[in-house]
């Protein structure tokens, strides 16, 4: 805390020395955080609308179409059937055609959006007849439902987070930070290009993180349960939330009471969301079995995680049954989560919590069952929240996260959007006067000047222009090859595999780096605590 204060002072002094500062963001932040947030969010919204002009996944590709059709179909189902029939195969609900496989909150959200679609374009959500429905108006309305979810949930959550997180660094960096979170290219491409509603679950998670950082543990647990009930993928963050909240409870005078309060909140939230399915055991289990599609195999396509990458050497799917693979993946995920969980239970801290989110989501991405390329959005979120601490990691991970999704986006015909949005992100990152532009020089990650010489050295090697340049060149060449050349007939997925391999190597390095970063935080807890007391 004190170091931050010093940083601020240094910044102010610098500003005084240099009154004619060329900071193009100064006018943006001089009215305070909220107006500048408004300005950036309007820009972010404009970018989202512009991405919405591009095609969605599965456009004009019968019979299965893509995620767009899945979401539309869910609206059709939820609008026309009672909640208890949503997850049940029946004559009116063919689960093999994009059956609902997200938790009930997604169902409710689809219902609300379905009502919206029905008022303006009834044909688009008519039962049976609307399958594969595609029209100008339909696309527009669907795009607007994502936009509105973004504006109503993700944007306020980010504002909440930034307000909680402020007090660190220069004022103008807040604008940069907001831009980094709101204009994360991967999230925008998947939600507004490919078509999904990640903004809702990620927004709820962000709000939960903000609540946790501002010591409102109960609110945080409710918000996080909501996120979990919108997309089961939010479970990637569960170890971090669990360990951080547990660690804080243990520090309390009456840990048992605190834990039971949290438990009640969690159970209560789940009970409300799952109400239509709690009347019988079968109904609840039926929904649960829809949420865990084990029959789809341990990995799909070419996702840059451990199982998929190592399957080039070990044919997991042939050697083991699904049952044992499930156990393998569970054990591997939990084992890799464990260090960061232990750290948080032992010494819960705001920064450690954010790193914990990052680490647990990376463990899940790398080792859990049935991971999709899009799941890289989950580690990206906590990293973008940490943008001021880890600017270069954010840049680097965004680069490879984008790259790992490139084949997917290429299938969706979103290459132009991909290029433009990536360029926009780079430009914003290197905004004149922003931290991204500054940290290129001698000034490195701020909180580790004296204590972590070794890490300084390592990260200076890792982020050495030659190393980054080499990897960047590799990915650039792969992009070009992927776009221009045909793979040999013998290996039709050669390029996908190469991309996967490159991205996987980076993701593993990131996991190691962030885990040790998190442990470094608690290595000197005493000095930190002393500083806190002083402040």
């Amino acid at each position: 805390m004190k170091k931050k204060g010093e940083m601020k002072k240094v910044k102010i002094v610098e500003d005084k020395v240099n009154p004619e500062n060329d900071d193009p963001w100064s006018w943006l932040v001089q009215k305070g955080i909220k107006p500048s947030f408004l300005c950036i969010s309007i820009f972010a919204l404009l970018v989202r609308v512009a991405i919405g002009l591009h095609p969605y996944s599965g456009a004009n590709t019968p019979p299965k179409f893509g995620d767009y059709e899945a979401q539309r179909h869910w609206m059709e189902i939820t609008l026309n059937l009672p909640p208890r029939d949503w997850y049940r195969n029946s004559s009116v609900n063919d689960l093999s055609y994009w059956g609902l496989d997200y938790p009930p909150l997604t169902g409710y959200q689809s219902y609300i959006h379905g009502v919206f679609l029905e008022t303006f374009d009834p044909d688009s959500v008519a039962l049976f007849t609307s399958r594969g429905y595609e029209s100008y108006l339909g696309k527009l309305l669907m795009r607007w439902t994502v936009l509105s979810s973004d504006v109503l949930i993700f944007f306020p959550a980010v504002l909440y987070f930034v307000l909680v997180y402020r007090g660190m660094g220069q004022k103008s960096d807040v604008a940069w930070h907001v831009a980094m979170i709101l204009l994360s290219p991967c999230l925008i491409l998947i939600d507004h290009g490919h078509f999904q509603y990640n903004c809702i679950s990620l927004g709820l998670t962000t709000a939960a993180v903000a609540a946790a950082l501002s010591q409102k543990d109960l609110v945080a647990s409710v918000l996080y349960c909501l996120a979990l009930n919108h997309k089961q993928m939010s479970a990637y963050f569960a170890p971090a939330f669990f360990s951080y909240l547990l660690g804080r409870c243990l520090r309390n005078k009456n840990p048992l009471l605190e834990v039971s309060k949290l438990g009640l909140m969690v159970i209560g939230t789940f009970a409300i969301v799952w109400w239509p399915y709690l009347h019988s055991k079968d109904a609840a289990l039926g929904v649960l079995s829809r949420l865990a599609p084990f029959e789809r195999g341990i990995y799909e396509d070419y996702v840059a995680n451990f199982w998929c990458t190592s399957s080039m050497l070990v044919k997991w799917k042939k050697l083991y049954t699904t049952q044992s693979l499930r156990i393998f993946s569970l054990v591997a995920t939990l084992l890799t989560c464990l260090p960061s969980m232990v750290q948080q239970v032992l010494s819960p801290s705001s920064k450690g919590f954010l790193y914990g989110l990052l680490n647990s989501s990376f463990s899940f991405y790398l080792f859990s069952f049935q991971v999709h390329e899009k799941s890289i959005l989950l580690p990206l979120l906590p990293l973008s929240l940490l943008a001021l601490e880890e600017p270069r990691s954010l840049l680097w991970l965004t680069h490879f996260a984008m790259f790992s999704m490139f084949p997917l986006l290429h299938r969706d015909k979103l290459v132009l959007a991909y290029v433009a949005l990536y360029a926009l992100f780079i430009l914003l990152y290197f905004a004149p006067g922003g931290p991204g532009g500054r940290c290129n020089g001698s000034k490195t990650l701020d909180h580790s000047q004296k204590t972590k010489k070794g890490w300084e050295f390592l990260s200076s090697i890792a982020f050495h222009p030659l190393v980054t340049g080499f990897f960047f060149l590799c990915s650039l060449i792969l992009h070009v090859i992927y776009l221009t050349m045909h793979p040999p007939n013998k290996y039709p997925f050669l390029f996908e595999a190469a991309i996967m391999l490159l991205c996987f190597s980076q993701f593993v390095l990131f996991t190691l780096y962030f885990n040790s970063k998190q442990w470094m935080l608690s290595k000197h807890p005493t000095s930190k605590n002393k500083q806190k007391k002083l402040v």
Partner: protein
Amino acid sequence: MEEQESPKTPVAIAQLVWFFGIASTIKLLLIPSYHSTDLEVHRHWLAITHSLPLSQWYSDETSEWTLDYPPFFAYLERFLSAFAHLIDPQIVHLHDGLNYKANSAIYFQRISVIVSDLFLLYGVYRSTQTLASFKRNLIWVLVIWSPGLIIVDHLHFQYNGFLFGWLLLSISFLAQGRDVMGGFLFAVLLCFKHLFAVAAPVYFVYLLRHYCWGGVVRGFTRLSVMGAVVVAVFAAAYGPFVYHGQIPQVIRRMFPFGRGLCHAYWAPNFWVFYIMLDKGIAFFLRKFGFNVLAPAASFTGGLVGDASPFVILPQITPMATFIMVLLALSPCLFKTWRDPRPRLIARSIAYAFTCGFLFGWHVHEKASLHFVIPLAIVAVESLEDAKHYFLLSIVSCYSLFPLLHEAQEYPIKVLLLLLHSILMWFCFSAQFTKNVSMKAGLQADKKAAQFGLKGSSRCAAEKGGFVLDWVAKSYLFGVLIVEIWGHFLHPYLLGDKFPFVPLMLISIYCALGILHSWIWQLKRIMILA
């Protein structure tokens, strides 16, 4: 002016490129959006210039979209068509290419506009070279991120950014006192798009007085130098057509006076009031039982407006509009003659375009950019200028809204305008509070440059920075009401009745704003001169 040739030029260029890059990525993202028939018009011009010999460029009638821009623009299309041919030969095929809507064609043309905006970049860089960094950034925001330019060039489709680059270049040379260069660039601009000729009287008077005046011999040599430059430019443009005997045909194509007084959608200018007056009188006369002929052609009919649509008031001929423009210009011409000052030239040119917009024949709503863009350069000079520009640019951008009439682009245009207004509001507020604080400790080397600002910063201190008065506020609020009425309440309450009312309201309401801007600009020129 020259002493500030800033030491931080690389930084400035990097920042400028940054602003431009952000704009370019947005423009790239907008590629799949709605585009008007202008895309096909320009594609056809690519085909004409690529597949036909020069002698037939202006006589070809394969498509209804005949070439009607001056020769330099045709040469530009010829240049672009070489690349288009490499990418997809069908784009430049005279017959097969008609209404060719493949991605290759759209991407090529859209990207050519984005690249041609580099001229705008250079133009605005040159005009802001000598300014302090904050003002420079502000002007870049106003010009490079101009929502009007994005709507017209990158959604609707045209090459205006490129042309404004030439205009800003010309103005920047004039402002530095390099008159020959300024005149030369303006002559080039005229050979790209003749609509810019509205400012020619101002150029003529200014160059005559500022460059050529003073002594018979000196004056005459300078006059002949300038004349030679202009003649050379025009010879380069029209020479080949003279050689082929095509000039009458070129002129016929470039000046299609067969078109009506007003465009399909009425540009928010003086003639809107004239039409409304006419309709109003006719309405009342009919009410009182007079037998008044109903107008033969509707004004909203656009191209078919060659019939005489006025019922009561005298008909308007192209000559009448020409004289009105000259009359409106005359005070400014007079001032320029009396006192030709480089500092005022941007204002005078903008004023000339305003007159042309308000009183001209068959004016497009897009033409309001002709004065909004140059005025951005002077908007940072004082608080009054900033307030005026704030209103004007919002009105001008709003008047472009009807260009994008499809639901898909609705949020885009609204967000563009909203973002622009908020950015302007922040920038101007920051600048004029900054001026107040800077008054205390002006640095010695800045003094020379700041002299012009002293007056403005004082009044900023008195009035407490960038605050709009209630008239301006209520006018802007009115914009909101007009928009809500036109888009939501009108269809809801009246259904399909009076479908012309929303557009008419926009025209009238924006015309009020532009009329105010015209008077304000005139007053400003008179006071400053």
